[in-house]
């Protein structure tokens, strides 16, 4: 058994505290969602009070939640496929010895990492491309990022060149080399970015807020946003406070909406954990 030093005990204690600090809000939210929401004095500290699942029944009785799930899963999967495909296709040429224009493309990529057009130019361009009420707005605009290309490039660069050269000698072209030789040995980077993409797309609320008018296209984050912030009473200039007060969503319903929204992602994480951990070190060591 490994010997434990005093500092190890301190580290373990620190990790336990940090884990508790991160887990407690999640547990509290879950407990509130499983409590009775009719009591305005509801005080939940850890365990649910007057356990009931009315909030979840209320949410799932609204059939639209399944539409939102369907939309979000579609956007996430589509985004992953497009992102991984185009990023790998963009990164691979950088490791091909004879590819001219590497330097220029490298500078071009780095510039995009530092400068952006901002909200208005992006909105105008996307609108001109017909992205209003178009599901592709959740997939295409963020399909290739400079950061991802650089990491993919670094990872591909670490793959032994002999692998590629032997493929070329056997008559394989670049596409075949990429899809049949390089990508199969790049599961770590693919899994890492797939997970990051899924989480990012799952959490995205701003693009659908900007570009979607049709409620049938809305992802689940828009639903959550409506549940959490239907009305901001701090703005007294807002209309008809007189009629709005009874419409405030109670805390149990809001908590249930949060749990319903994050639950699928929480389920995926354990299966992707090892890839995610390995992927965190991607690009940090060249060897």
């Amino acid at each position, binding site marked *: 058994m490994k010997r434990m030093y005093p500092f190890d005990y301190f580290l373990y204690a620190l990790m336990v505290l940090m884990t508790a600090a991160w887990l407690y809000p999640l547990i509290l939210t879950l407990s509130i969602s499983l409590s009775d929401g009719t009591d305005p004095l509801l005080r939940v500290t850890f365990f649910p009070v007057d356990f009931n699942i009315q909030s979840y029944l209320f949410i799932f009785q609204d059939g639209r939640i399944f539409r939102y799930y369907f939309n979000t899963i579609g956007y996430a999967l589509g985004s992953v496929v497009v992102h991984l495909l185009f990023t790998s296709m963009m990164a691979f040429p950088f490791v091909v010895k004879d590819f001219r224009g590497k330097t220029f493309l490298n500078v071009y990529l780095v510039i995009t990492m530092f400068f952006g057009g901002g909200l208005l130019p992006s909105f105008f361009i996307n609108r001109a491309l017909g992205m209003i009420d178009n599901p592709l707005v959740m997939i295409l605009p963020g399909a290739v990022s400079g950061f991802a290309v650089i990491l993919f490039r670094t990872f591909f660069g670490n793959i032994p060149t002999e692998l590629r050269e032997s493929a070329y000698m056997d008559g394989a072209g670049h596409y075949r080399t990429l899809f049949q030789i390089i990508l199969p040995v790049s599961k770590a980077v693919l899994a890492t970015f797939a997970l990051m993409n899924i989480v990012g797309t799952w959490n995205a609320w701003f693009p659908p*807020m900007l570009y979607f008018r049709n409620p049938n296209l809305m992802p689940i984050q828009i639903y959550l946003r409506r549940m959490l912030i239907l009305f901001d009473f701090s703005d007294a200039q807002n209309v008809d406070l007189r*009629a709005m007060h009874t419409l*405030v969503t109670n805390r149990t319903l809001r908590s249930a909406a949060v749990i319903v929204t994050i639950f699928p992602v929480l389920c995926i994480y354990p299966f992707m954990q090892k890839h995610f951990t390995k992927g965190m070190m991607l690009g940090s060591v060249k060897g």
Partner: protein
Amino acid sequence: MKKALIFVLLLTAMLVIAACGRNNEEATPDPTPAATPDPTAAPDTNANEESDPEPTGSILPWTGDPITFTFFAFDVGVNEPEDAYGAQLLREKLGNITINWDVPTQADYNTRVNLYWAGGGIPDVMWVNRSNSWDQLAQYSGMLLDFYPLLEYMPNFMAAAADAPWALRYINTNGQLTNIPNLENDAIPEAWFANMDVLNRYGIEMPTTLAEMEEAMEALREANPDIIPFQTYGWGLGYYVDTMSLILGSPFPAARRFFCHENNVWDHHLLNNTGSSRYREVIELLADWRERGFLHPEFMTLSGDEVQVIMASGNWAFTYAWAEQLTAWFNLGHRDEWPFDIQWMPNPQPEAGVAPFANARVMGDNVWWGFVARHDVQHPEVLAAVIDLVYSYEIATAFQWGQEGVSFRYNADGIKEWIPEFLEAGQDARNDLGIWNLMLPRYATLRDDTALMRGFHDEAQRAIRGVTQAVLRGDIRVDYVPFDPILTEREREDAAFIRSSSNTVQDEWVAQMVAGIRPISDFDAMIEAVLAVANLQEYMDIWNSGEPLPTRPTSAERNFIYP
């Protein structure tokens, strides 16, 4: 060498772009109107050199090819049941017209509106308010539909405007009417309340003056430190400053600038001696209450949920809020009994014989929200008729009262009243009938708030009635300031910049003085600190140089409604 060359090229490009932008700004026409029509006068129907618009009757229900309009607003929680009486009525009247609603959350609403103003491509109809800059920016931009030539298709709106001339206030100097507003009533829905369970428990009588109220709060603190003597919304320090201002009989709320009726000019309460001394009194009172424990220790940062827990617990003595807020705090229906004996408390006088102020936040002439439309909307006359629907007596009644014989009836005097059994059925019954639960009239309508008020808890009704009658008697004052003057876009931006700087510094100092971090004696130093970062005199000069709009009618000239 190459890097230096790239740097110089980039710098040159940026300078050229900046120069082009500056030239473009100077070339932008100044949208300042040359003259402003009197908003309280009857509309000049010859303003567009056309014949007087004669009501031709509605062109609805539409029987032509199907038309779809897109309306944009923010989500106010309406779920318009398809079989609701009001929804069916609306469909019958619309005919072959469909309205698609684009309703983001309130938090995202301003982002979307600003994008529309910046980029164009606005929906067919937008629901906007004056703070969205439509009145001094968008209406001169050419983006918006001029409703003036379409008034012949809006007989209901014109009939309503006959009694409410401010409905046509936003006829601009080009003779265009670009906003069809929500027509509010004059109402004073905020009031003081006392928790008599708590007061009776400790033998305290309901106070009538500020001194009596402070004695009561002091006694409560000594008797039971767990009781919060005064608690109101979790809306931050500004609302408490407003409330203290009303108690002290000072009409200078957290808005900071005020209209000096004696000199007929706008002034800032940090520049004006009277203003600053009154403002200091307000801050002193608030700091004193905080120090003496009359307020929750974290009153400046309490959230809405936290306030609800406090109010629902009953461990408080006095509150100032919208009259039906208590019902919401207790998670009850409007007609449910409150769990505690809470009674309306007349506004405490700063001293015996001195009238306090009330906030008349709801004023018919304070046109705030309304519909605007895109200038190139298809079938503008049909759209005008659709919007006109909400001002029809039939739709307005269905929206606010429901269905005759089901939810309301006419009493012997011909006045509408709720059917008691319907009222006792609760909020769900109202929602199902479409009462305050229809999309189109929810955003702009011909208001009859007696419907809403007569459905409130009896004590809430008594509070609104009491405060309003006190205002009409003159026992409580309301400060009616002129409408904000019309400024150019540049003037508004300059004023906003100064205001933002000054408010930031002022808020920080005030919060520190109220919290006891700074002494009140630092008040003069605060003024110096604010003036060091913001030229308030320039701000007031800008405000006073704007095209003025008339002072609002006085309380005696208004038609206040109360239950």
